[in-house]
């Protein structure tokens, strides 16, 4: 079976005027459907940059991104937005929920940018919130939730459009270890249900919950 997502020799350069920073110096990765992959590396090694390029939030300076055997590297903004909406879910370290907006409305947000019929939104969002055990917190504003609850809302939001792949960038970085464990358990459970998950973390212990780890160092792959 062909890989779900793959990068070929991806380079990312930041031009800061007098200096050029090479955040990625030729990275080739393949992700298969149903995989739970961890991208591990020290802070500043280029993990997030790689994830953003794989998640079509950013474009590489050179190299290619292939999704479902289609080269999407040079896709236009509008098409990339559509793929992000339908195929990809993001979970961030700092949750990124809309402030003063209910958990339910936060989960509905990706549906608004999709062509899913409006009358199914609420049901879908409720199902997702139930799945992350927040059925009793749906109408709470995001700022009324604890860190762990916020992250679970964010996960529900990432799942609601039934994407084929989920990216999580340091999802436990703002949580205590117990709550962090709950979140990573949730990812394991989702993976068991067949979701493809890519976890980005600097924490080698945490990375062990993933079935496969790749190590990135100074913008280069440094072993599996």
């Amino acid at each position, binding site marked *: 079976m062909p890989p779900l997502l793959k990068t070929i020799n991806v380079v990312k350069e930041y031009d800061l005027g007098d200096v050029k920073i090479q955040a990625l110096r030729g990275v080739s990765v393949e992700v298969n459907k149903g995989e739970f992959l961890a991208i591990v590396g020290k802070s500043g090694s280029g993990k997030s940059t790689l994830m*953003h390029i794989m*998640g079509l*939030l*950013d474009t590489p300076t050179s190299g290619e991104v292939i999704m479902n055997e289609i080269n999407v590297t040079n896709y236009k*903004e*509008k098409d990339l*937005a*559509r793929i*992000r*909406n*339908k195929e990809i879910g*993001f979970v*961030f370290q700092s949750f*990124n929920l*809309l*402030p*003063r*907006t209910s958990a339910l*409305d936060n989960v509905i*947000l*990706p549906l*608004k*940018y*999709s062509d899913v019929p*409006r009358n199914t939104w609420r049901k879908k969002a409720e199902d997702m919130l139930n799945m992350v055990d927040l059925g009793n917190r749906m109408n709470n504003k995001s700022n009324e939730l604890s860190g762990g609850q916020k992250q679970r809302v964010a996960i529900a*939001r990432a799942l609601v459009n039934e994407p084929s792949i989920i990216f999580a960038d340091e999802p436990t970085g703002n949580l205590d270890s117990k709550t962090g464990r709950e979140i990573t358990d949730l990812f394991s459970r989702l993976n068991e249900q067949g979701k493809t998950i890519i976890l980005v973390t600097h924490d080698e212990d945490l990375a062990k919950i993933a079935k496969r780890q790749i190590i990135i160092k100074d913008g280069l792959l440094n072993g599996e």
Partner: protein
Amino acid sequence: MNFLEIFRSSILSLRANKVRTFLTMLGVIIGVFAVLSLVSLVRGVQNFVTDQFSALGSNLILVAPGRVGFDQDPGLAFANNKLTAENVDRINRDASQYIIGATPNMRLGKTIQYKTKRYLASLVGTNSNFLSITDLEIDYGRAFTKEEEITDAKVLVLGPDVKNELFGNRNPIGEKVKVGDTYMEVIGVLTSKGFNADERVIAPYTTLQKVFNTKNISGITIKAKDSDSIDKAMTEIEIALLQDLKDDEFTVLSQKDILSSIQSILSILSVGIGSVAAISLIVGGIGIMNIMLVSVTERIREIGLRKALGATSMTIGIQFLLESIMISIVGGSIGIFLGFAAAFAAQSFVRAEVPLWAVLLSFLFSVLTGVIFGTYPAIQASKKEPIEALRYE
């Protein structure tokens, strides 16, 4: 995302930030309110002037000394005043086909004294025809007669304000009041007509000429038979006066002409004041732009997030633009409401009214403000790269 969804998102985000939304609105509210309340106040003044004029009576024609115009010094015209009672007689004779009557008109500011009470009244000298020419009426007592006019009788008719001030509830008929150094007898009291008409004291012009030792009259008041006769009457009056005077020694004006020139001055004033107030709308618009720009920075992570979730630059731009437009529309509506409330409150002083053009114009202006000053922040918002926005701390 269809337009309706973007619209809903805008409302949701405005509602989630009520204080910020209200503060942004405030500029537009004040701007629209200022335009409407000032324009309606000028309207009130305009109505006041019209009311004043119609209190004088209708179909009036006035003759003023000298040449009246914007480039003339009115003081000079009165200093070279050549108008006399003979001119009035000639008008009464020559224009009789079109007029009800003509009366000389003298106006002097004089203190009237009764015992210890004093009142600064407008002392008006006319002939015995004045009741049929002006709209004045006798409440009680009587007007002076032709006989009294010819014999310079020292008699007076008091306006109701003057009577109340000097006599209170007592009957003034037959009492003597002091005008300057001369005692004159009160023979009647006028019916109240409102405004400054009630502050008048009417006496035979002949008496005033004699008492104050002057030959001239300050003008001539003529009443035309009906509104169709006004133009013909004015021509006849002009011809009559030219027999005795040069054409730059008098001016014939109709009440309508005077009123319409005052009205046009006030209209210009109202547009002028409206424009000044419109500047505050522009300031309000700049306020919207400011807050929206701050909002773009403050919500940069939200923009990044929305893009990560599938928003295009276009949907982000439209959402921000709609937010500004809604702020200005709602702000404009509140401003209009407050403007009407102010006009209503002012109603106890003047007949203030809110003209429709001012409502439409200020509403249009406030919407335009939203569009114009919302566009730049919207473009700024839409241009944010998702990564740049998500990284922003």
